[in-house]
């Protein structure tokens, strides 16, 4: 399987030979990070998920959020469903933890921006 490593801008094309779905030989990487990335891409691709949560009584309707680390690609749709159902009251602080452990991945979901509370008219 051919994997383009995205750990750095070099974008090395890494070849991963697998046996029964398990990586047995990795070549073409330019550095150790590339080898790790390629193995993981084959076994269990992971991605950082970024999206938004609804904010209640905020100056903006949404706050952008991210997972603190990459989560398995196969549960992204499920994660989106969880996040879509959330509501966070304003004010939201940048870095605020929205979900401590997202779907048991060990990654938290944090706000990446602040959203102030809407002033009283």
């Amino acid at each position, binding site marked *: 399987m051919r994997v383009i490593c995205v750990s750095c801008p*070099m*974008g*090395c094309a890494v070849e991963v030979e697998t046996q029964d779905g398990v990586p047995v030989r990795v070549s073409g990487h330019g550095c150790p990070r590339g080898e790790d990335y390629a193995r993981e891409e084959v076994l269990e691709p992971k991605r950082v998920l*970024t999206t938004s949560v609804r904010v209640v009584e905020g100056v903006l*309707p949404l706050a*952008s959020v991210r997972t603190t680390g990459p989560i398995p690609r196969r549960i992204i749709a499920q994660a989106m469903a969880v996040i879509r159902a959330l509501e966070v009251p304003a004010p939201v602080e940048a870095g605020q933890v929205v979900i401590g452990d997202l779907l048991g991945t060990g990654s938290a979901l944090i706000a*990446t*921006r602040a959203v102030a509370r809407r002033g009283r008219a």
Partner: protein
Amino acid sequence: MTRHRVDVLVVGGGAAGMAAAASAAREGAKTVLVEEGSCLGGVLDQCIHPGFGLHRYREELTGPEFAHRMLGELRGVEVWTESSVLEVKPDRPLAKTVGAAGWVEVEAKALVWAAGARERPLGALRIPGTRPAGIYVAGLAQRMVNIHGLLPGRRALVLGSGDIGLIMARRLHLEGMDVVAVAEIRPHPGGLLRNVVQCLEDFGIPLLLSHTAVEIHGQGRLSGVTLAQVDGAGAVRPETARLVEVDTLIVSVGLIPEVEPVSSASGDLSMGGISTSSRLQNRTPWLFAAGNCLAPFDLVDTVAALGERAGAAAARFARGELRPAPTVSLRRGDGVAVLVPAAVVPGEPAILYLRAARPMDEARVSVGTDGVGRTVRGVRPAEMIEVRLSAEETEAVARLQEATVEVIPLR
């Protein structure tokens, strides 16, 4: 109507402007940063995806997080938001500005233009058909989704595979839209490979290379787009035309530097943006520039670095410490699609940023004919090549009237 005297006026509160203002203030200049929107950050706040800060902060941050860091570095700068610079005349650094506090004339000693770039509208492509609702440039769609929380439509086609288009393909898909494809007129993707993987391949969104839109359909709202393939010379092959039924067209077909208010001062606009030397100084000596208003960059880290250098240079100029120096013009030669800056100062180190016209496995970047150059591997148009020239190398280039920069494939 008030008059304000400053050392350095920075126009534009995005990454380049924030970096320039922070840097000018650190050099001791009395600095004002003018931003048209209601808050600083430029496009960073709407770029909620990661990919920022790998170089500058050695961390992979999202756009808003990068903006947050830069905001923290902004010390000793007077910030005017909801203020627009209407005009900068060519004879002196006097900026006519208007904002919620009224009309202000800012008399500066140096001015850093960091107003970024706008997106090319679909209308510029002269694609025949109707003009219905549902056609949005990618950045506008991004703001609609990420800032306003609005879904542009139900079923989308993305035209153009630049990074913004790829990012929006993923974003709209994650928010429940049916993204049917990304169409790209060139035979290779316009954006970073990592985005092709993580925005399209991850979600099974087809990338249609060598495809372009040839007709727009729909009366009130978009109903479809006819796509067709193009041949090696870029000519449309009409027999390949097929209708793609979508109610949303996301247009990502290029960035154009925003320079109109300062164009009479800056003179010739190479690359469509403001021409500068390697000092980021324009031929009009009090005018400096950084960021996407020079040419579209790929990494915000680079934009911030340029802003920093421009701000510092502007501050030194304001102090009278930037001595005029002769420059050698750089010309775009074979294989170079984008080249910044437009000139180097012989005897001073310079950093060149260029985009290759075509993908190449290995290539030689040459500057002038005196052997100054670099070998680079994995050349892709989506990724800017950075070439750092030493003082000796720019000195070598000085012997030429004009130095042509080329990117020639080695294999």
